[in-house]
């Protein structure tokens, strides 16, 4: 799966989880850019992404990813892309 394909899928996860059709992700997108993306919703986001891509993040990754770009990097490496 290419980074672009991952981003598209990821974008849909964000749209569903935050129930907001207007979300458009870029590599630089952070929690500050999305209103409902707070620490309480972060864990739901992690679960939803794990489910979508059939992967598991480790504890360290969950706390250190700074933006969507890093998120995509981790997903890509897990998928062996």
């Amino acid at each position, binding site marked *: 799966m290419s980074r672009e394909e991952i981003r598209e899928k990821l974008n849909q996860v964000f749209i569903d989880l935050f*129930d907001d059709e207007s979300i458009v992700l870029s590599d630089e997108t952070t929690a500050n850019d999305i209103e409902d993306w707070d620490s309480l919703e972060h864990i*739901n986001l992690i679960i939803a992404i794990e489910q979508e891509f059939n992967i598991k993040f480790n504890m360290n990754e969950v706390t250190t990813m700074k933006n969507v770009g890093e998120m995509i990097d981790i997903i890509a490496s897990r998928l062996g892309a």
Partner: protein
Amino acid sequence: MDVLEYPFDSNYLILNRKRLRKELLSKDYGLICKIAILGGSTTSEVKNVLELFLLNEGIKPEFYESEYNQFYEDAMFGNESLESFKPDIIYIHTTMRNLHHFPSIEDTEDEVQEKFAEELKTYENIWESLKRFNAPIIQNNFELPPYRLLGNKDFSDYHGRVNYINRLNNAFSEAARKISGLYIADINYVASCYGLDCWFNEATYCLYKYAMDMKAIPYLAFNLAHLIKAIYGKNKKALVVDLDNTLWGGVIGDDGVTGIRIGSDTPGGEVFYHFQQYLLEESKMGNILLVNSKNDEDIALEGLNHPSSLLRPDDFTLIKANWNAKSENIKEMAETLDLGADSFVFIDDNPAERKEVKDRIAGIAAPNIMNPEDYIRIIDHNGYFEVLNLTEEDLKKKDVYRSNAERKKMMSSSLSYTDYLKDLHMHATIKPFEDIYLDRITQLTNKSNQFNLTTKRYTLEQISALSNNDNYLCIYGKLSDIFGDNGLISVIIGKIKNNELHIELWLMSCRVLKRNMEHAMLDELISLAKKKNLEYIYGYYYPTNKNKMVMNFYDDMGFTPLESDDNHKTYILEVNKYENKNNIIEVN
């Protein structure tokens, strides 16, 4: 909503929660419930998912959430926002993570006992202190620990954590038997079903302080929703079952009575035998059984008379075996029994039949029961029949509904309706509240919707306070007749102000509609009011979606309308001008 029924998909609920919430909130809710969650770990997602399940039950929750891990402080010392929130229900979300006095290996037996007593005391203090809210308390018990230092010995040695938790849970169950209004949410059972290794998630706890895995939370919340909907009288009442491939294997019309699979001799028969055992146990709990099958009636009865069939025609209150739409059969049965079809659970192996019924009957449950080996688990885990307190009425319910059906038969043969009522030889007991009936009275105040003038809901604590309050006149009514005892079916709660009685609640179970019981109740109320030198009775009607049948009730009872608007009507009755109305029912 199907997605909120067991078996549900936690991943789906997490991803779609906001959309589902929006969809559910677009409906109207008559019942608002204020829930205070006092947590020993993070509760945000517990609250979120619980909200979905409650909305799906027709209950709109409002929440108070304690600050992180402030359950003890909030319970013991309170705080302004909790006190002013005035919860209807208090939920104490503590788990094994909140236990602070686990035995250590060098402790003597006495030291362990001291620790145990101290741990238990924490919770006893909390329950005692929370009495100030007069609200039901739901308390989690404790799930078993994620590891066992002593291995299997953890269970039997007093140093073991498994041993310690089992003892605490036993103490909680004793407390729940003694303290009225204390209900234990058995998370130990929920966690066991879920699987402890999956239940505990160390990363989730360390990062977010959730005491269980995020995907386990819907199971916890669903179990909690069962208790809450039961507190509000929203339990189901009847199981409507299909026959072919539901109660037995095979199709009796094609395979013949010798061809169907039932009985413990073969695996294919035993699975249905176990299911019949389960249904029989449910019916002993007071949940009635009904048959709804596409078959000729004589052929259906042949099946139920099969020597290996555990369930017999007599175990069913009504049997509908015909070729009508199943939804039509259900509506007819609901009418015969004076029950709402939304209090039925429809069990059918055929998805098309389930869909037909669900599409036509709002609020009915028709779970996807999958394969015969799954039937029991799926019905059980949906918590349709959550028992709060076993009242005698519950255990007698089956007889009550059967005699209702017999009464209907007699009505059609009587000359006139009055003759029919006389032939019933009714006898009523109408008296001020008595302690043994408080459970049943509370239950009625929470589940009567149709014949209910104000639809005011009460907790057991409130009812028991009212029964001892001299400023209130509270009476109950029981009714029996030649076909059987209907049990306690009517309640009036009136507040005394000087020489006036204000009726805050008047309700009656629909199973005794049109029997003149309301006349007998008013006669008795007036006679008690006279003894207290009261001169005026005020009646109030507050309309809801469900109580239109009593819209003109006070007019019919001879009250004079005072004022009215869209939201209420007020009436008055002069005690001295009242003439007794009942001359059919023998009272007291």
